[in-house]
Each structure stands twice: as structure tokens, then as C-alpha cells.
């Protein structure tokens, strides 16, 4: 059963880590003002896996940017661990929608960048990078530059780089969008395993409802722009779940169907708009 709760209610995973408090953000363009998000109230507990879903352009990426401290809200505040986010939030690792790899570094160079920044010794760095390359299945492409990789491989490199620096909170913006079904499932399983075993807090953006239900503890459904929270739905699946068997789980199919009904009308409203 899908339980709909009022926005901002706490979750039982742990104590609150991120809080969006009456957050609005608008962009001043030369000829008009774009209101990206409006009055968002959301509280994310430590260790929680929260998925943001909504039509493109509703401000999901904007919310992640504010959590990372790259944007400042126009109104309201974002709090992280009780403190106002002001400037780069170093507790977060951000995998942006465009992978933003360094074009002048090969796969190994990109993944080891955060390790170099942290001052890890060369040997330790190489060992860790090799592990991560295995994890994301990029063996054989260690010396390829981003321009030589497919979209999916670039995403996997970006994910490995993110995991390399092991931040407390992961901000993931449509990380698996460019992957084929098989690989996506593998990465989802891996991400879920990592998030549980290392107790990571995750804000995950997707517009794939199946993915939202499969991964989330809670799904936050946004309205079209200006994005505000339409519903927050607890996922009725156990935290310890088997992603390969979900398709046959009636709870899972029921929740995806309900999310679909929530999203469907908004999809129609924004048909034809690019993200």
C-alpha cells in the first residue's frame, strides 16, 4: 500500500540530515523570470534513499544544486546537518546530469582525481581505482578518454569517480539514464548495496518510475514547473530487497501504477518540453 504523507514529515531511518525549508528558486533571464521550484519542504534522514520524480524542467536538478551549495535558494533555506548550506557543501558528492568528466584525463585519471585531491599515495590510489573500474565494469577502457566512450560508459566513469571520494551524501541526477537494461539493473543493485552497507544518504533524480520504486525508501513527486511537491510516497518494500525479483512483487507493481497515475496528468501538461 502506498501511504501518502504530508510534505516534510520525518522518516524513521535516522535523524534528519538534509532539510529544504520553504525553498524557492527562480532564475532571472534577460527577458523573463523562470520560477524553477516553489515552496519545497522536504526532510531527508541520514541513511535514507530518497528519489525525486517529476516531469522535466520541474526543478529536480535545481534542488540537487542547492543541496550541493552550488545555487543559493531565492527564498527559504537548505540545511545540512543542522547548518545552513552556504557555499560548496563538501559533505555531498554530486553526479550531475551531464557527466562533467575531465576531457583531458582518461578513465583512470578521472576516477583518481578525487583521490589525488585527498592526498592518497600512488599505490593506494591505483588499487582503489582498479577496484572501482571492476565495480562499474570498465575493464579494458582504463586508458580511454571521455570523448572515446559511449554515454553509458561516461556515466559509469562518473559514478566510479563519485564513489572514489566516498562522500556522506550522494546526489545523483539521472545517473543510469544512458545505460541498457541489464547494466542498469547491475548498477542499481550495486548502488543499493553500497548505500546500505555504508549507510549513505542518497538524493536520486530519475524520471523512470520503475527505478524510483525499486530503489527508494521514499519517492517525492513533483508538479510541473514551478516545481512543488505534489506527493511523498513511502515505498512499501523492505529495505533489504531483491531487485531482480521485483517485477513479480505485487507491492512493487501496485506502487509503480499509483506513481504512474500521479505523474501521468503532469506529463501531459508538459508534453514536448526539453529537460
Amino acid at each position, binding site marked *: 500500500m502506498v501511504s501518502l504523507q504530508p510534505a516534510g514529515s520525518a522518516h524513521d531511518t535516522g535523524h534528519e540530515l538534509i532539510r529544504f525549508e520553504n525553498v524557492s528558486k527562480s532564475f532571472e533571464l534577460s527577458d523573463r523570470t523562470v520560477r524553477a521550484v516553489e515552496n519545497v519542504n522536504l526532510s531527508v534522514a541520514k541513511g535514507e534513499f530518497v528519489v525525486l520524480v517529476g516531469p522535466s524542467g520541474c526543478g529536480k536538478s535545481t534542488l540537487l544544486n542547492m543541496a550541493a551549495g552550488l545555487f543559493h535558494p531565492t527564498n527559504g533555506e537548505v540545511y545540512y546537518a543542522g547548518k545552513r548550506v552556504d557555499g*560548496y557543501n563538501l559533505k555531498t558528492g554530486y553526479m550531475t546530469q551531464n557527466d562533467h568528466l575531465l576531457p*583531458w584525463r582518461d578513465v583512470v585519471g578521472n576516477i583518481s582525481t578525487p583521490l589525488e585531491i585527498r592526498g592518497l599515495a600512488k599505490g593506494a590510489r591505483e588499487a582503489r581505482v582498479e577496484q572501482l573500474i571492476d565495480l562499474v565494469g570498465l575493464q579494458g577502457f582504463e586508458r580511454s*578518454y571521455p*570523448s*572515446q566512450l*559511449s554515454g553509458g560508459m561516461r556515466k559509469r566513469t562518473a559514478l566510479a569517480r563519485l564513489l572514489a571520494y566516498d562522500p556522506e551524501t550522494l546526489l545523483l541526477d539521472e545517473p543510469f539514464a544512458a545505460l*541498457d537494461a541489464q*547494466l542498469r539493473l547491475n548498477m542499481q543493485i550495486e548502488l543499493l548495496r553500497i548505500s546500505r552497507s555504508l549507510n549513505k544518504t542518497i538524493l536520486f533524480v530519475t524520471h523512470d518510475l*520503475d*527505478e524510483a520504486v525499486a530503489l527508494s525508501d521514499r519517492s517525492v513527486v513533483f508538479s510541473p514547473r514551478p516545481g512543488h511537491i505534489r506527493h511523498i510516497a513511502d515505498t512499501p518494500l523492505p529495505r533489504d530487497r531483491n531487485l531482480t525479483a521485483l517485477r513479480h512483487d505485487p507491492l512493487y507493481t501496485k506502487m509503480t501504477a499509483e506513481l504512474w497515475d500521479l505523474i501521468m496528468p503532469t506529463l501531459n501538461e508538459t508534453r514536448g518540453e526539453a529537460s
Partner: protein
Amino acid sequence: MSNADIGYVPASDEMVAQDRKRRMDKARRARIRERIKLNVIRVLMVGGFFALWEIVSGRLIAPFFISAPSAIFRRLGGWIWSGDIFYHMGITATEACAGLLLGSIFGIVVGTILGRRPFLAKLLDPIITTFYSLPKVALAPLFILWIGIGIDMKITFTATIVFFLVFLNTYTGVRNVSRELISILYLMGANEMQVLRRVVLPSAITWVFAGLRISVPYSLIGAIVGELMASNKGLGALLVRAQGEFDTAGVFAALVAIMALAVVFNTAVRVLERRLMPWKSLEQGHESAV
């Protein structure tokens, strides 16, 4: 909606990569064929031009004006035999090289600093623009007064010309670095130096090299103009001497030597470019796809 929902299974990454490699190999063979064809046509064109020149000289136009390829090559041969040409080329090359090096180092450093410090850049903008619009050749007399007519004057002069070219390009390059990439690095906890080394400089290097490439001919201009004005050694001096003796073949021979130097310099910059930006040559060999 997931891909699975609409029954679409995209090709795997490895298949895509292999296919791309096959297409790149094919494209490389086509490029080699084209290069051979181009070179053959070029040799024929240049050979034809020299033949025409040789025929016209002394028949339609007096050798005093155009000399003749045979006379020019004899003169060059004589200079090579005596070793004169290497001495003068060496002087000019030293001046141009040192000027290029000094000017570009200062250009890169100042361009990077101003690129990362918008306030400073705004403050200095009108001053720099004013100096930039000054024809640098006009500074030569001042440098002669200050430094004299030795090799160091030519180096300073060349460095000044090169500085502005490299500085402006570096500055533009640094200003154009992706702000997102910089943010990503800061989010990883990087400090300013780490951001500079890993993002700003590699990103700006394309621009720096654009500046270096246009600086090569200018560095030779600097060295040779300096020699034309005040010197008894270097290719510029050789040029002045030949002109003073009404030795047209000598003037042409000196020009050939200058061109040879320019080709060597250009090649050096290109090799350096490929060495320092391995990801660039890959991108160029890349077929564009949408």
C-alpha cells in the same frame, strides 16, 4: 519511462565502441590516401613555379629584380659551405626562441592570474587594451636606447610582442573554463591550486597553443626587425647586407633561410601541442556523430 517498458534494447557500450574503432580505421586509410595525393600535386605545382621562374629570369625580367632559382641555390650552397648561414640562423633562432619562451611564460602566468581574478582584470583592462593596440614595432627604438643593440635587445623586443599574444589567449582560455567542472572539483574538496592544475590549465591550454601558434611568425618578425634596425649578425643583418650589395640572389637566399626557420618553429609547436594534449589529437581523429 524505462527503456524496458517500450521494448527498446540499445546496443551495448562495447559494441558501440568496437563499431566506432572500425569506422576510425577506415577513415584513417582514406586520410592517408588523400595526403599522398595532396603532396604529389604540391610538388608538381612548386616545381612548375621554379621552372617558370628560371625560364623568365633574364629573358622577360631582369635578374636584378627576380634573380633566378639556380643563382639563389648557388648562393645558399656557398653559405652552407662556408658555414655562414648556420651562424646567422643560430643567432636569429636564439633571439626568436628566447623571446618566445620568455614572452609566453609571462603571458601564461599573467593571463592565468587575471583570468582567475576578475577584479584585477577589470582594473587593468583599459591599460592592457591601450598597450595592446600600440604597434609593438614602434617600441624598438626605446629598447635600443635602454638595452643597446645586442642580442638581449632583440630578445626583450620579441618577448614583448609574444607576451601580448599569449597573454590575451591564455586569459580568454581561463575565462572560458567550464564553471561546472570547477564546481565539481571544489565539491571534491580541492583547493585553488588543485583546481588550477587539474581543470583551469588543461582547459585553457587549447587557447594557449592558439596563442603560441600565432606567436611563432611574430617571434621571427621581432628578431628580424630588431636585426634590420641595428645589428651585424643574424638573418636580418644578412638581408640588409645583401640588399646593400644589390645582391638579389642573396636577399632571396636569406628569405629562404628565414622560411626554413619558421617551418622548424611551427613544427616544434605542433609536436609540443600533440605531446601536451593527447586527448585533442584523439578528438580530431574522431568521426562526428549525432
